């Protein structure tokens, strides 16, 4: 039973007699492939091929197919091929295998590489327009939901809103504080290290203060929120879409935007400025610690310098941007979530897209705000 498979080829005149022996099963597939290849030339030369199956001890689909392929190779060029001595318990399988692989579809023509590139380019152009449409649609739907809430304030999903605030605001505080603290400390350390060469160490405080309050505090926090909460929104809404929960809501006469999306985005819009504020303070604190232990600047002097260097305008510039960034993150995350299709792969892809796109848009928005504030002189 456990012996190796064999294929004995005996040419008698124009007729080639093939006698497979032993187990012709998937376990011996490499031996089978070698055997069938070795008699290939003989098959092509002879006028008729007879396959004597009486020596086969075990046969499965793979073995049967290898033999069938040999017989088809013979019969394809007008020669005759036949199986003899097929044991009863193999005949069903042999008959089955004889039916398969008869209608191989014509291979699709190799695509033109230039056309392929153009096709991709066209697709991504159309895709970009589609992205913009979806973004605007979501913004519009959100606006309508807000109007609905303003007209009937009791229709606001307060429980959901508070829960989302807890999740994306309160629970995010530790990590936001830790990271902004480190960023503030790093900026201060770099400032002291490089400004020391031309004796401008005290300006480090100006740099830390302005940079953190105007730009970095809110930007870092927004990027973190996009990665932490935006991805969660996309994945949640995506899996709800996959399990038809969103369709169920719609059929009950409820607007998914109102029930699911408005509380989430509203929570983001409320939480992000708060997180940005906390983050900025943590960064200033980190800068202060570095000033004391690395720059040798007493805390009182650090605070006094900070007081001189920054004004409320710097703080306003930073914090004003936060709700807009939150809106962008929320709209992108929710619309990507609703674009999820049936498969798990699609969920992963949309989540990635959501994070990448919202971080990109947050940075673009930050640039636009920088231009805007510069031109109004803030």
């Amino acid at each position, binding site marked *: 039973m456990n012996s190796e498979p064999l294929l004995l080829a005996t040419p008698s005149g124009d007729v080639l007699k093939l006698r497979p022996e032993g187990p012709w099963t998937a376990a011996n597939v490499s031996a089978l492939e070698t055997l069938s290849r070795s008699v290939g030339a003989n098959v092509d030369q002879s006028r008729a091929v007879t396959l004597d199956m009486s020596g086969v001890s075990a046969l499965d*689909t793979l073995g049967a197919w290898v033999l069938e392929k040999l017989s088809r190779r013979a019969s394809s060029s007008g020669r005759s091929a036949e199986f003899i001595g097929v044991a009863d318990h193999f005949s069903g399988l042999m008959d089955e*295998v004889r039916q398969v692989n008869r209608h191989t579809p014509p291979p699709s023509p190799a695509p033109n590489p230039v056309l392929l590139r153009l096709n991709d380019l066209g697709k991504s152009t159309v895709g970009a327009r589609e992205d913009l449409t979806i973004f605007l649609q979501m913004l519009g739907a959100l606006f309508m939901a807000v109007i609905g809430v303003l007209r009937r304030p009791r229709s606001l999903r307060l429980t959901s809103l508070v829960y989302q605030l807890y999740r994306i605001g309160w629970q995010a505080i530790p990590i936001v504080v830790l990271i902004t603290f480190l960023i503030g400390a790093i900026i201060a350390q770099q400032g002291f290290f490089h400004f020391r060469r031309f004796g401008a160490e005290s300006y480090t405080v100006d740099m830390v203060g302005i940079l953190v309050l105007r730009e970095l505090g809110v930007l870092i926090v927004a990027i973190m929120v996009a990665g932490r909460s935006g991805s969660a929104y996309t994945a949640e809404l995506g899996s709800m879409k996959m399990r038809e929960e969103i369709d169920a809501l719609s059929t009950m006469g409820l607007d998914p935007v109102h029930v699911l999306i408005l509380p989430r985005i509203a929570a983001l819009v409320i939480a992000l400025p708060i997180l940005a504020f906390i983050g900025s303070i943590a960064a200033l604190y980190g800068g202060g610690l570095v000033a004391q232990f690395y720059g040798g600047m007493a805390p009182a002097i650090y605070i006094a310098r900070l007081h001189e260097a920054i004004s409320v305008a710097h703080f306003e510039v930073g914090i004003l941007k936060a709700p807009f960034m939150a809106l962008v993150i929320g709209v992108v995350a929710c619309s990507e979530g609703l674009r999820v299709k049936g498969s*798990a792969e699609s969920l992963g892809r949309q989540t990635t897209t959501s994070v990448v796109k919202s971080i990109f848009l947050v940075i673009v928005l930050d640039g636009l705000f920088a231009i805007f504030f510069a031109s109004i002189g803030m």
Partner: protein
Amino acid sequence: MAESQEQFAIRVRDLVVGFGRQTVLDHLSLDVRKGEILGLVGASGGGKSVLMRTIIGLIPRQGGTIDVTGRPVGGRTEGAATTWGILFQQGALFSSLTVRQNVQFPLRENLVLSQELMDEIAIAKLEMVGLRAQDADKYPAELSGGMTKRVALARALALDPPILFLDEPTSGLDPIAAGDFDALIGTLQKTLGLTVFMVTHDLASLTTVCDRVAALADGKIVAIGPMRELLQSEHPWVRAYFHGKRSQMLQHEMR
């Protein structure tokens, strides 16, 4: 037990499986003969799937022995794909692979063979389960429920395993598709000489394709035998199952 060891594909003895304090299978014994189609019925949540998953090693057991083709089963076994094929309820196709790649996956992982032969075998398997070669490049998300089950069956059979486990193969299919699927399983069982272990609620499947039916209640096999014998069974749960209103209606029409 006059029958010799050779005649059994699966032998389960005194199997105990539980989660926490709850005992799901309580000293269960079951024999599956080689070359038969055994249907397993039981209440929803009564441990049918647990039994199947324990036999294939997905759930740890607390006691008892399981022999599959004469060898004891313990944990995850190497080369399991050559021993048995499993058709999961939802198909469990790999969603990132095409139909062709799904069927080729067990071949690729277990054997060394040329891509050409692998392609031909995959198409052969797909045609054997009633699909066309054109469907091979689709992704699982593009398939209908019946096609998903067929592809999953083709994947389960990729290595020609002697034993096939089916978890509710006809659930979610319309009666015509379910009937076709039953016929397909019957045909494949004959051509490939399979032993089939089928968990099902489909009375039509039980009557048409199953050689024997086992009834699982209170963590034990309370009745086993051809459908005709089970209908005569005096066990209260078995009576309730086969002589309830729904069952009566079906059986009446079958007569």
